[in-house]
């Protein structure tokens, strides 16, 4: 559906060449919810604007949406092609002088659609986003979540195949964020809409994306199926995102700031077990304590659902003979559990 090939975007800032996006290639399939995550300044907003050419990437980059190479289109053709791609923004960007209904009608005007049909379409869309009773309100009278719903209705007015979301939930509180994400999910299912989500919030990606790409200073450092990327992160930036979203990383902070809290006696080992497999159903800790006569004192445990599959782990102190501890670690690794030694007495 969307093929980004060798996207580069450089610009001059105070006589310095800035590589905002550096040779990024991504394939997004039809009906997918694709997340692009990165810290601020990673170039994600620039990248998403390259998809509808609000930012024109450097020569040599190719943006193919629905089989059409957008970079090769004339101004007029490009404007027509943009109606295939809806976009919503962090700050909603609704027209303040127009009512909710008129905002949704905005993209329908000057397209040879009759006035009645414009209103009917807009009303239908507002019903879809659950705002049919606010048609004559002005944006200033709405809450953030309602504004984003209007923006979604507006973006969908011309029946796009793709919806680009530029930090669409970053200005919203957690509960409203969840509502918007649920709405996006249902639109994805109902309309078969391909959604591209730009965010710095791990929670957003975890909740709705099936695939993810991680950007770091304009470079694509990792991409793939979300479960695989997050259960076994390879790049340090990906690890930072996973860590930020998980309680299991708390122990790193504790070890760094208050090492005295975790006192190990001889023979004890502080470990972090992370489950990489989708189906962790075995009672691993019980079985190792029986098999290898170990005691495990659990400090933290955490489980997260990523795209519907559990991912998580345990931090604890293993106590037993050295031989048994290493045998247990081997056993766990065979069961696809990632074992990290955090502290050794």
């Amino acid at each position, binding site marked *: 559906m969307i093929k980004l090939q060798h996207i580069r975007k450089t610009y001059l800032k105070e006589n310095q060449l800035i590589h905002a996006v550096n040779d990024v290639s991504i394939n997004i399939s039809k009906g997918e919810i694709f997340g692009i995550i990165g810290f601020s300044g990673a170039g994600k907003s620039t990248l998403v604007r390259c998809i509808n050419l609000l930012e024109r990437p450097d020569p040599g980059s190719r943006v193919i949406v629905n089989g059409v190479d957008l970079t090769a289109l004339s101004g007029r053709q490009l404007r027509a092609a943009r109606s295939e791609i809806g976009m919503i*923004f962090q700050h909603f960007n609704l027209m303040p002088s127009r009512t909710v209904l008129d905002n949704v009608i905005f993209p329908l005007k000057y397209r040879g659609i009759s006035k009645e049909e414009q209103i009917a379409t807009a009303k239908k869309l507002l019903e879809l986003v659950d705002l049919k009773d606010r048609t004559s309100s002005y944006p200033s009278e709405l809450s953030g979540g309602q504004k984003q719903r209007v923006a979604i209705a507006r973006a969908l007015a011309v029946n796009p195949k793709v919806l680009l979301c530029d930090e669409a939930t970053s200005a919203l509180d957690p509960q409203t964020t969840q509502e918007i994400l649920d709405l996006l999910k249902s639109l994805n299912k109902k309309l078969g809409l391909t959604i591209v989500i730009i965010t710095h919030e791990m929670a957003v990606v975890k909740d709705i994306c099936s695939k993810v790409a991680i950007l770091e200073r304009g470079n694509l450092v990792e991409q793939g199926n979300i479960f695989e990327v997050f259960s076994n992160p390879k790049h340090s930036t990906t690890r930072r995102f996973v860590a930020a979203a998980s309680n299991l990383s708390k122990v790193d902070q504790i070890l760094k700031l208050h090492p005295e809290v975790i006192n190990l006696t001889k023979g004890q080992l502080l470990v972090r077990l992370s489950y990489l497999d989708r189906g962790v159903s075995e009672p691993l800790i019980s079985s190792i304590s029986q098999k290898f006569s170990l005691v495990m004192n659990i400090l933290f445990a955490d489980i997260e659902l990523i795209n519907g599959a559990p991912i998580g782990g345990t931090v604890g102190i293993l106590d037993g003979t050295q031989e048994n501890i290493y045998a247990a670690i081997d056993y766990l690794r065979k069961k696809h559990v990632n074992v990290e030694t955090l502290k050794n007495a």
Partner: protein
Amino acid sequence: MPDFIIQLIPNVVNKTDELWVSLWQTFVMLGISGIISFSLGLVFGVCLIVTKADGVMPNFPVHRGLGLVINLFRSIPFVILLAALIPLSRLVTGTAIGTTGAMVPLVFGTVPFFSRQVETALSSVDVGLIEAAQSMGCGLWGIIFRVLLKESIPQLIRVTQITSISLIGLTAMAGAIGGGGLGDFAIRYGHQRGQTDVTYVTVLVILVIVALIQHLGNQIIKKNNH
């Protein structure tokens, strides 16, 4: 007419006809040069916004050139402009005196000021709105009319109020070189013949015009502000 009014403004009472004529001349100058200046200022203001470096259609030479010309004309005091533009006035309107002769300098005195005001008004439009419009397939004209101008109507009305009021000041000055109107009326009688009551009545009339413009503008703003 009641006696006390005759006592209060003796010199006005005996030339009410001339006062009406002056008032009409002021309205003609205000109306015609106002409409021309409004249109030109709007065009130049839009041009400045659209062609700036991060505008919808960046064009450095146009932006810079227009900016320079505007600054040049803004820096010339109006009284000097009145004299300097006499040849141009003759060329354009066929005369350099009277209400018609005042039109050209009035337009030249107002357009640069109003263009800058329009520029300020339009730059209050959130760039995010322009981006959203572009993402919905709007072209240059769509952005100018449906976003820039439409979304800044309250600000545009505010700057139009300010400019019309300063235009009244200019029409009064144009009266000094024989442009007619209320300014001319006040100078000829109030100043040159020492009939101070004429000056005061003129001031009062102008005050009413200004108040009307303010009121009208505020009503439109109220209707357009959400």
